């Protein structure tokens, strides 16, 4: 049988009573907790100060009378000021560290009903931190009676043990992850796991987050949802400031990011706070961070580490406390290796890195996202559009098939839905609309993919199939130059410009004609 050990303060007020039999009509928590039929206290570690020695004697005697099973182990703990948090916490911590706990053989209950509020708070904190390896014990009197026994209950601070609380936590977390997914019932396991992790990191960490993934994978949308989730949980107050670094060019970059003082340069007619300042107490999302110059990277690093930076033309730092979310579609490691991205900034960003898979890698999520895009269209246009069954099946079969590259990811899907919806004035997308859209998508992806040349039109499918990829790239370039040139000579000059500069070749036009002839092509074939 495991022994039960109670640790608690002697209550200098609550445990005190008149001397005499009337004390048994009063609820005295330290005595009362030894009077319950359903709680057997084998040892009671009673903490008290020197001024309360006599009360402790009296209480210990009464405990012996009502509970012969209980050994009272008295422990003198003197506080200069029992309301001083630092002192009380320190002394209780020393006590807890020196006490020989044996959780294998004993269950510990920490009685928090007696003592100063500061004492109770310290007991709570030390129990929560497992310095006291037990549960909290709370006792209370029965209302309206002179009952000496009262009531007791324990509180296990491991909240996962409480079904209703655990259920609510789970529901809350599910709500948050659903929030991050914009309510889309995604089924891709890797993506869902990533969202679960982001949910935890977003709510527990203020460190920078790095979202990697191809363009259109939803980095920007996810960054905004992370911000909104943090704002709902009162973790940020400020704004969500979003900027695509690829759009920042030249001299204006520094000023756009870090602001400037009036008169810092020509045209600086007024103070400009800059994006970092605007994101104070909020979230700054720097998309395509790999596009930033090295100087800007250095400034960003300092702003993240010190929460301070120097606006253009200013003499003193300004402060801004923001959480940074960075997005990139490049492999930053490659850029670090080539010296285009600062290693120290990368190290700072690389703590929480999440790689968003492209839509083609999330085939099982295409159907729920299709519904989401239809909803968005309806919201935007005030016009609800639906598929007929056959059309939907045909579209999804194509969308999840090997032909569907989804190179632009969600951007492609959104555009595709918008086109189909727009071409279906009856509000119903039918098989014909889908077939037409499939043709459009095919064309889109052949044009943008690695093989996106137009050699098929020039050579015909059979001759193209016979062509080595090695030659195809070169030929495609040559054909493109020819099409952009007004004459064979002009095309030849451009294609052989290096030889021409060395005067190694004089008849560029002839050289080009011979090259084209190897593929059975003539200049006229390449003119519109």
């Amino acid at each position: 049988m495991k022994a039960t050990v109670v640790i608690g303060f002697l209550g200098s007020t609550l445990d005190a009573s008149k001397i005499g039999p009337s004390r048994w009509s009063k609820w005295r928590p330290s005595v009362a907790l030894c009077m319950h039929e359903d709680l057997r206290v084998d040892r009671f570690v009673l903490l008290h100060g020197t001024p309360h020695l006599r009360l402790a004697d009296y209480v210990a005697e009464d405990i012996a009378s009502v509970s012969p099973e209980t050994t009272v182990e008295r422990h003198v703990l003197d506080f200069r000021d029992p309301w001083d948090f630092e002192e009380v916490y320190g002394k209780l911590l020393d006590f807890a560290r020196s006490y020989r706990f044996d959780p294998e053989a004993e269950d510990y209950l920490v009685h928090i009903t007696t003592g100063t509020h500061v004492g109770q708070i310290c007991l709570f904190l030390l129990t929560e931190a497992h310095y006291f390896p037990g549960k909290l014990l709370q006792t209370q009197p029965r209302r309206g009676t002179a009952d000496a026994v009262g009531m007791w209950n324990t509180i296990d601070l491991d909240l996962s043990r409480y079904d209703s609380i655990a259920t609510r936590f789970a529901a809350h977390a599910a709500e948050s992850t659903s929030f991050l997914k914009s309510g889309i019932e995604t089924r891709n396991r890797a993506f869902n796991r990533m969202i679960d992790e982001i949910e935890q990191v977003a709510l527990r960490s203020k460190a920078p987050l790095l979202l990697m993934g191809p363009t259109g994978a939803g980095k920007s949308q996810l960054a905004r949802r992370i911000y909104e989730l943090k704002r709902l949980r009162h973790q940020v107050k400020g704004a969500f400031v979003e900027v695509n670094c690829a759009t920042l060019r030249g001299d204006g970059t520094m000023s756009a990011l870090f602001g400037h003082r009036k008169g810092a340069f020509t045209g600086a007619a007024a103070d400009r706070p800059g994006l970092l300042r605007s994101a104070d107490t909020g979230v700054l999302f720097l998309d395509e961070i790999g596009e930033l110059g090295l100087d800007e990277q250095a400034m960003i690093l300092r702003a993240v580490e010190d929460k301070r930076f120097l606006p253009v033309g200013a003499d003193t730092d300004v402060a801004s406390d923001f959480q940074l979310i960075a997005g990139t579609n490049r492999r930053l490691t490659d850029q670090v290796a080539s010296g285009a991205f600062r290693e120290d900034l990368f190290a700072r960003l690389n703590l929480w890195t999440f790689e968003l898979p492209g839509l083609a890698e999330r085939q099982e999520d295409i159907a729920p996202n299709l519904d989401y895009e239809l909803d968005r269209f309806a919201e935007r246009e005030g016009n609800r559009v639906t598929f007929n069954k056959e059309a939907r099946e045909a579209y999804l079969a194509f969308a999840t098939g090997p032909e569907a590259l989804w190179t632009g990811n969600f951007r492609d899907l959104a555009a595709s839905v918008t086109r189909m919806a727009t071409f279906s004035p009856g509000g119903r997308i039918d098989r014909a609309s889908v077939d037409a859209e499939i043709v459009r998508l095919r064309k889109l992806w052949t044009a943008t993919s690695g093989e996106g040349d137009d050699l098929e039109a020039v050579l015909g499918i059979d001759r193209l199939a016979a062509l080595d990829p090695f030659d195809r790239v070169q030929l495609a370039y040559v054909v493109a130059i020819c099409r952009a040139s007004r004459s064979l000579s002009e095309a030849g000059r451009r294609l052989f410009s290096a030889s021409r500069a060395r005067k190694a070749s004089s008849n560029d036009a002839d050289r080009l004609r011979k090259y084209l002839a190897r593929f059975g092509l003539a200049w006229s074939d390449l003119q519109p």
Partner: protein
Amino acid sequence: MIIIDGSEGEGGGQVVRTACALSLVTGEPFRIANVRGGRDRPGLMRQHVTAIEAACAIGTATCEGLSVGSSEIAFRPGRIVPGEYQFAVGTAGSTALVLQTVLMPLLRADGPSRLVLEGGTHNPQAPPFEFLARAFLPILNHMGPKVCLRLVRHGFYPRGGGRIEVDITPAPLEPIACRERGAPAGCSARVLLAGLPLSIGERMMTAARKGLVDWPAPAFAIDELPADLGPGIVLLLERAFDHVTEVMSGFGRMGERAEAVAGTAARRIAGYAASGAFAGPYLADQLLLPMALAGGGSFTTVTPSKHSRTAASIIERFLGRRWSFTEDGEAGHRAELV
């Protein structure tokens, strides 16, 4: 191994105590599932743990699952060792209930024993000391053994701290028939009062006299005990006959009027006196076990309680002997071991 469902019958601690006593006497192990399954707070309470620990101590027994709140226990008896024992039971626990657990086994031991029991002696949830000393033990001693009970210090609920001493000289239990109570041989009504105003005792006494008009005035008395034993107040009504004495009690409680407590107790003793039965309901409970161990016996009683029927069914499980309760005209019911 005997398997008992603790929620059957009366569904309380009596099942546990009776089973422990019978197991030690018969050497038969038992398991109880759903311990005290019939109660609001099921499982073993402190006083049951103490009682089982006492049974383990005198009978070199082991008990699995023994802890407060436990709902299943397995008890394996050993050899009963007579000697000197001291058991202390906490606040609401009664010394009488610990005695009930260990007395029958110690009567089977091969030597005398001396027990010191500390805890409650006057507790509303259990028979008071006077009931054991004056109603139950005289009949038990009549069956052969010699059991002597002394009250050293009163222990009232909730503070406990009482003390009784028991001397036990074993002898084989002989069957007896207890059909006639004999001629009236006196009565007494006493209020024991400690640490409370005397006026409460007086009110209780007055109410008791109103309910027992045929009792002579000198039978009524108040015993004021030292205040430090209190608070506590109990009315003890004792009706003696040539062959049996019954004791009924009424405990004063916070929130209940002294007059109401005394009135109920007076009605109960008057009802017993008018019935013609040998044993009242509490005494009937206590007689079942020793008579069954004696191998025979009978007595008349009022309507058998659920407690009595539960005890009888546990006895049947261990001993294979059945108590039959039949209506018996004026005396009420007749209980007979068949």
